[in-house]
């Protein structure tokens, strides 16, 4: 058994220690946010936050993770109460198929927690590990800029999920 801290909750996981985090999130914890894209760290669809930084969950074995805080897009808010980054993606309609979006959002969240006012150049450089095939990139960048503005206006909202406006 390995205990994982996911979105603020502890979960005892019965899986091989070499199992990549992605499969535990999706299969054991039934979380949908992290997506399988390549299994190689080339596309970013599986990205989650670990210790506040963006990581490819398809590459990180759970043996490396006990008691370290993991956050997925489910930890940013809910359908009824979306967090600021999620609201910004809705406002900008920054998705087509949407498959790559949760991974992008987790890297963006990690960026905004460290740098509340990233420039467009910084946002693009930061998202370089991520692929989008629908070509929604321009809206994704705009959504992150919007989220940055809104988080600054309501600083407590940065954690997502539990805040209301």
């Amino acid at each position, binding site marked *: 058994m390995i205990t994982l801290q996911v979105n603020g909750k502890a979960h005892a996981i019965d899986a091989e220690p070499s199992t990549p985090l992605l499969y535990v999130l999706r299969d054991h914890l039934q979380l*949908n946010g992290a997506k399988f894209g390549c299994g*190689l760290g080339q596309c970013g669809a599986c990205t989650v936050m670990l210790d506040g930084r963006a990581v490819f969950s398809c590459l990180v074995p759970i043996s490396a993770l006990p008691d370290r805080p993991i956050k997925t897009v489910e930890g940013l808010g809910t359908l009824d109460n979306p967090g600021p980054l999620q609201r910004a993606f*809705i406002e900008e*309609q920054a998705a087509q198929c949407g498959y790559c979006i949760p991974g992008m959002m987790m890297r963006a969240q990690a960026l905004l927690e460290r740098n509340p006012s990233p420039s467009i150049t910084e*946002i693009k450089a930061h998202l*370089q590990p991520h692929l989008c095939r629908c070509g929604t*990139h321009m*809206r994704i960048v705009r959504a992150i800029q919007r989220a940055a503005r809104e988080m600054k206006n309501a600083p407590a909202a940065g954690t997502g999920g539990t805040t209301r406006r």
Partner: protein
Amino acid sequence: MPPMTRRDFLAAGGALVVSFSLFPVTSGAQETDKPRLPGSLEGTPLLDSWIRIDADGGVTVFTGKVEFGQGIKTALIQVAAEELMVQPRRIRLITADTARTPDEGYTAGSQSMQHSATAILNAAAQVRAIVVGLAAQRFATSAESLTVQDGTIRAPDGRSVSYGELVKGQDLHVPAAPQSPLRDPSKRTVMGTPMQRVDIPAKIVGAPAYVHDLRLPGMVHARVVRPPSYGALLRSFDSAKVSALPGVLKIARDGNHLAVIAEREYQALAAARALAAVTRWMERPALPVQADIDGHIQRLPAQTTVIADGTGAPAGAGPGVIEARYLRPYQMHGSIGPSCAVALYKDDALTIWTHSQGVYPLQRAVSEMLRLPAERVRCIHMEGAGCYGHNGADDAGADAALLAMTYPGRPVRVQWMREDEHAWEPYGPAMISNARARMDTKGNVTEWQYEVWSNTHNARPGPAGNLAPAWHLQKPFERPAPQPAPQPAGGGDRNAIPLYKFGNVRVLHHFIPEMPLRVSALRALGAYMNIFSIEGFVDELAGAAQADPVDFRLRYLEDPRARDVITTAAERFGWKNYQRRRNCGKGFAFARYKNLASYTAIACEIELDRDNGRVRMLRAVAAIDSGEAVNPDGIRNQIEGGILQSLSWTLYEAVSFDTTRITSRDWSTYPILRFQNLPDHIEVHVINRPGQPFLGTGETAQGPTAAAVANALADASGTRLRELPLSQRRVKAALPP
């Protein structure tokens, strides 16, 4: 939504009760001169196949089309809400399911609006007329005196009744009429107004949104150990060690189709890797040499069709004769999420949850493959990652079906790996084109000849032989002989006939049945290559005529809608007053998709790094007229996306292969656009035509983007590249030292 007034009713035809009373309950006799019904109503005429109203006033709308991120659900809800005169949130939309919805074939060809939205628009208007007619009867008044607001009908004396109360016990199981009492297009309240997509919130909070997220009770996980190359034969494998791995439930082999089923997903993956390591295949070098793919394709037997039969342009270098040859490599759909499907065989019936673009064709294909009656196969669409055409979705459905049959009683989920999708998806075909024209001394194009060589662009299921897993079975299915798609829409020859009024236009389509690599429908089919070629060549002619490329195009175009998108894109881009910066250039392109659908013009500016050959788009301005615009922001999103995807195809993408295997097996061996190569700005102008037929949007930007980029590169560099992709290496090699 404002109330519907008497004036609206009159504007909409004023014959609502009459049209209701005209609906025949049975329509036996008059088969001969029956007028066609609008859109997909022609194939599915009963109104309650499309729209049902519950007693509580909820509305359910059915479509045979599928959502894959293009926003069709939202647009269809808008269309239904508009004509039913209810708020969009009252509408529940059911998408393609062989047990529930109309058969609308594939969701493809930018035709969902023409087919499904047209059907729903008309069905909704007719259902509203029926319901208003019922209210008029109940209130013993005229339909014209009634007003409708959000599904409630009011009489002048203040009495009111809801749709739900009225339809109780009523029969909407009646055929549609050819004419519908449509609302006045100038009074639209929902259509033509941007609406937030209904599918986005679930996708960005991690709610179940994709077939990948489907978790059924008792579900098991499978991985297929796929052959390393197209024709590879399974020689041997050692199942003993793999069977003993944790969670492994079954190793399933049928001929060359080998898979492992396990309790947990990662157990299936680990077991499949272990199985692959102990499996021996026999392969042979059956692929052509990549560097000679154009020559190879042109040497294969061709079926040649003359699709425009003018006299053409003379061969050889005569006075005023210009000739150019263009090449396109194999290119991928490249879905970010590898294909996935879940299937369950239980009680003699098979259910498949699939992100196929065509649930009915997949039902037929699986039925044939398994020799199971079609009525015992149900295919239910759930979203996948964006597909942009025929990717691995149907094959994954077939994998799941095969494995569910060998492991009955529990749902089997098959997830393709990245290299499965890269190596096995059917690519957009490699193509060759040749353009030749003669201009007189005044710069008029007096003769034009264009030829295109291509494989099929449609090898979709329907036939089981178009499912890759069916090729691998002990009793394999043969691939059906491909057929060229007829003009005017065409396949490899889509958009091969120029819209410009040139003299003596001759166009030949060389259809190559033999397919060295697996190919099928990729967004825009042959239009991507033909528009790249024709619009590039038109620029070359404009250059030879010393004419401005936009003026030159307008000189040969009469259609006012074509001229509108061209002038709009040129003006908003600032074409006339363009100030060239060093190493930058501007390019323009136009097409009417399929020569019969939407009009798109794109102007763009690129920047060239002469030291390394790197090209970056700086900005693009597009104008699109896709008829009546239902969700303008949805159209913008599709065009922005089309521009960026086509930019990626055009600058970076070519499937690589050696003579045995596909070697593009991941994103490092098939690189695509990333964030740091984005343009700074994309702007899309939607020209709305209320009341005009829907023309579709999804595929229209692909060709014009490619040509606009190539034209801008020629403008910036002084050198024209005619071979795709316009890669850094190729650009660098073409530049003068």
